[in-house]
């Protein structure tokens, strides 16, 4: 028989104001008699739990020893002692939870009853007291999951429990157990990898059958009835109701589509799919139903619900948007029978990506790819209304083509470098990469230095300030027949290019010595760009121009080392046809011409008048010669020579 009974204890402890100081805080020592009487421990005396007070004098010493619940609840105590929490207590961790921290002390009601501190609906909050973000436990102890309570409350389990009040939904203790909370690395833990399946199938008993349609069935072909760890796919606290892959496994598709005999009813084309193609491709980890997304797994023939062609843009959204805007995409939108869709260029199941030499989009293969439609005579070329012809043939012979196709230099400009891959627009479209306004930037993607120079030159600076059409790269270098600038042919052609806009001055150039030599086909003479520059042409008034007063003598000196300023006064575009601009030359020319005409006139008349007389003389001589032959006489066979017979 205890020395005191409960009434003795309650004599002090029913006082609401009874407090004591523990550490730095004031702690209430009030125990509600009513609540205690309503708890499961109502029949036990105070000293059955507070054993150290058994027979003690009142008032008792403080502090009391910690209550050992295991005196009655030995099994749970044993489990708890082995658990992470128990071990923490044994270490003396001040943050370790004791029985009372979860269950309460004097007002413990039955677990299954309402109002229990550890009722299912309460459990997340009980655990959350220590295991929510920001608590000392989460901050200072090695807990391997973050935002546990937050994630859980948003997960399907949390939603079910907390928002829908489904008390059979799993709470913390369902998976982690109540007292045997062990680390996931502990093989005895309910959340150890090899035990997870057992834990989850505690509720999800038939998951194996259901999952067969979601994940690759072949796993069960290898090892039947072995569930992978659920957490491989379903993150422990974040588990959601996720619709994976519309529920079709590749193996289900291949059951029909691996058959060689499978043919489309409409046109007899083969519908066989070689799964190894996909495995080799960039889509190796993408399942069939991710692209062919309209399949319905609940049909016997799941593909009968497919109505549309595969829409690559569902994953490749940006490219898809760009493509819609471009010429090819618009053809597709108009359902033109020749329109190129994604698969025309990229293939279907064996999409290899542009770094793979076997891919059609590998740079050296791109011209051949585009040539399928754009070669002269092919589908696109016959509808093309612009000025470019024999594009593929020209490109192949151009410097870019040679670099790419003969030398295998993959960074050379290929069709898509200039025209872009998915944003092909006609030249007339202001957004097109080959619209004259944008050409310098397009070429400048590689030829940056030249573009910089060009932007500072007169041809670029005048853009927008004049009505005249200004030249861009493609006007002088052509679009597809780009050749090396040090080739003879290019050097000679370029003068015709300048001459297209600068007609008069080009013509006068050809009247000068430089021009005549170049006309003969020799490039070792000053041509337009030797004096004016190529990409850095500036008006002569600009001091940076090659022909400014400061620079012109140096420009001449590139070929004529002895040039001086007067030498540079040579008129490079002089012509004798212009009396206003070049009067000296005009009058010199006409003076000489008059002399020439006059001389020929006089000499010509003289000669013409002589001819009849000369003919007559010849006849007379012939007659005389015949007479001589008939009567050979003392005709002198001697000749008259000069002076003394020399020579």
């Amino acid at each position: 028989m205890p020395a005191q009974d409960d009434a003795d204890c309650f004599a002090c402890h029913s006082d609401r104001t009874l407090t004591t100081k523990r550490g730095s805080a004031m702690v209430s020592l009030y125990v509600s008699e009513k609540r205690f009487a309503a708890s499961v421990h109502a029949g036990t005396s105070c000293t059955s739990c507070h054993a150290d007070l058994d027979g003690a004098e009142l008032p008792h010493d403080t502090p009391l020893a910690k209550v050992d619940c295991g005196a009655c609840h030995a099994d749970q105590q044993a489990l708890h002692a082995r658990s992470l929490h128990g071990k923490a207590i044994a270490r003396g961790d001040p943050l370790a939870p004791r029985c009372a921290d979860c269950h309460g002390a004097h007002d413990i009601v039955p677990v299954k009853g309402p109002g229990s501190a550890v009722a299912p609906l309460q459990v997340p909050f009980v655990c959350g007291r220590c295991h929510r973000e920001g608590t000392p436990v989460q901050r200072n102890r090695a807990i391997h999951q973050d935002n546990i309570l937050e994630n859980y409350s948003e997960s399907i389990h949390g939603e079910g429990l907390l928002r829908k009040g489904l008390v059979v939904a799993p709470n913390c203790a369902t998976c982690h157990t109540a007292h045997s909370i062990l680390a996931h690395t502990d093989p005895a833990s309910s959340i150890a990898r090899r035990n997870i399946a057992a834990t989850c199938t505690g509720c999800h008993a038939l998951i194996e059958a259901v999952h067969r349609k979601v994940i690759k069935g072949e796993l069960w072909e290898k090892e039947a009835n072995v569930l992978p760890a659920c957490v491989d796919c379903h993150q422990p606290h974040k588990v959601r109701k996720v619709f994976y892959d519309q529920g079709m496994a590749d193996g289900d598709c291949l059951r029909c589509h691996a058959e060689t005999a499978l043919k489309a009813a409409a046109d007899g084309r083969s519908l066989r799919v070689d799964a190894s193609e996909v495995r080799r491709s960039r889509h190796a980890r993408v399942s069939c139903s991710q692209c062919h997304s309209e399949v319905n797994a609940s049909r016997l023939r799941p593909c009968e619900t497919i109505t549309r062609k595969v829409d690559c843009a569902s994953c490749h959204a940006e490219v898809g948007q760009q493509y819609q805007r471009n010429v090819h995409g618009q053809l597709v939108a108009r359902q033109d029978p020749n329109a190129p869709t994604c698969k025309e260029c990229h293939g279907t199941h064996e999409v290899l990506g542009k770094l793979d030499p076997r891919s059609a989009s590998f740079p050296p293969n791109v011209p051949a790819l585009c040539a399928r439609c754009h070669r002269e005579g092919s589908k696109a070329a016959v509808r093309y209304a612009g000025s470019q012809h024999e594009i593929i043939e020209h490109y192949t012979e151009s410097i870019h083509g040679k670099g790419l196709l003969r030398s295998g230099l993959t960074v050379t400009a290929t069709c898509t470098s200039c025209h872009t891959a998915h944003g092909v627009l006609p030249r007339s479209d202001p957004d097109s990469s080959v619209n004259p306004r944008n050409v310098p930037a397009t070429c400048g993607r590689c030829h940056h230095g030249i573009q910089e120079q060009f932007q500072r030159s007169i041809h670029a600076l005048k853009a927008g300030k004049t009505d005249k059409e200004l030249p861009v790269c493609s006007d002088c270098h052509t679009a597809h027949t780009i050749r090396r600038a040090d080739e003879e042919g290019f050097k000679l052609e370029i003068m015709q290019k300048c001459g297209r806009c600068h007609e008069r001055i080009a013509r006068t150039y050809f009247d000068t010595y430089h021009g005549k030599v170049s006309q003969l086909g020799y490039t070792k003479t000053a041509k337009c760009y030797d004096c004016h520059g190529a990409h850095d042409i500036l008006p002569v008034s600009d001091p940076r121009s090659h022909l400014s007063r400061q620079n012109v003598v140096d420009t001449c000196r590139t070929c004529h080392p002895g040039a001086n300023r007067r030498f540079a006064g040579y008129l490079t575009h002089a012509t004798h046809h212009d009396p206003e601009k070049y009067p000296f030359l005009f009058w010199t020319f006409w003076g000489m011409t008059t002399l020439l005409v006059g001389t020929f006139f006089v000499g010509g008349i003289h000669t013409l008048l002589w001819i009849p007389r000369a003919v007559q003389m010849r006849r007379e001589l012939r007659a005389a010669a015949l007479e001589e032959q008939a009567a050979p006489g003392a005709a002198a066979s001697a000749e008259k020579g000069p002076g003394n017979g020399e020579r």
Partner: protein
Amino acid sequence: MIVSFMGLALTGLTLKFSYTSWAAVLSRLLGGFETAGYIHRAAAVVMLGVFLTHLGDLNRTKNREYGGSWRAMLLGPNTMLPTRKDVADFLGTLRWFLGLGPRPRYGRWTYWEKFDYFAVFWGIAIIGSTGLTLWFPEIVTRFVPGWFLNVATIVHSDEALLATGFIFTVHFFNTHLRPEKFPMDIVVFTGRMPLDEFKRDKPAEYDGLVASGRMEQHLVEAYPPIVVRTIRSFAWTALGVGFAMVVWIIYAMVFAYR
């Protein structure tokens, strides 16, 4: 003289008429414009040499036949300088052309031969000086403005056109192709002409030589036929080239002019 002249003409015309297709072909045949330039300048040097040699030869002739006196050579009957007789001969010839008079009795040098001679003098002076200007532009422009080079280009090429055109037409006819002389008068190569021809063409000189008794010392044997044939073939070649150039010049100036 002939060789350098042909060389100059061929190379020069490829440049002057560079806009014709002929020019490009010929230019390539000649080894390209740079080589043609070397040929042109080399031939010019040769022609300059011929000129200087001629001056030296004049001196020698003066010493040998005129006792060292310039006056005697330049003012005597065999002078190359124009005289009153030439004016008379010219008018007389016109009358003869029109059937209004006899053929004049020409002396050592006929008036057209004198004209040709001084045309060459004039030509070499003009073309030579402008040619040197174009050959050494950096040096020349130390003294004259740069536009002189443009003027020199026009003068050089137009005077050359005059010279070549005249030679290959009027001169060729006068001297080589007159019907009574056809196929050609090779006196320019041999320095000899048949005696009866001499009597006919330069009667005044013939009379003079006979009268002074110096006819005999000028008589020599004719060259052997092989020599004559060789000279003839060279002459035909030169003629042929000249004709081709005339055709080409006419084509370039009339049909293809730019």
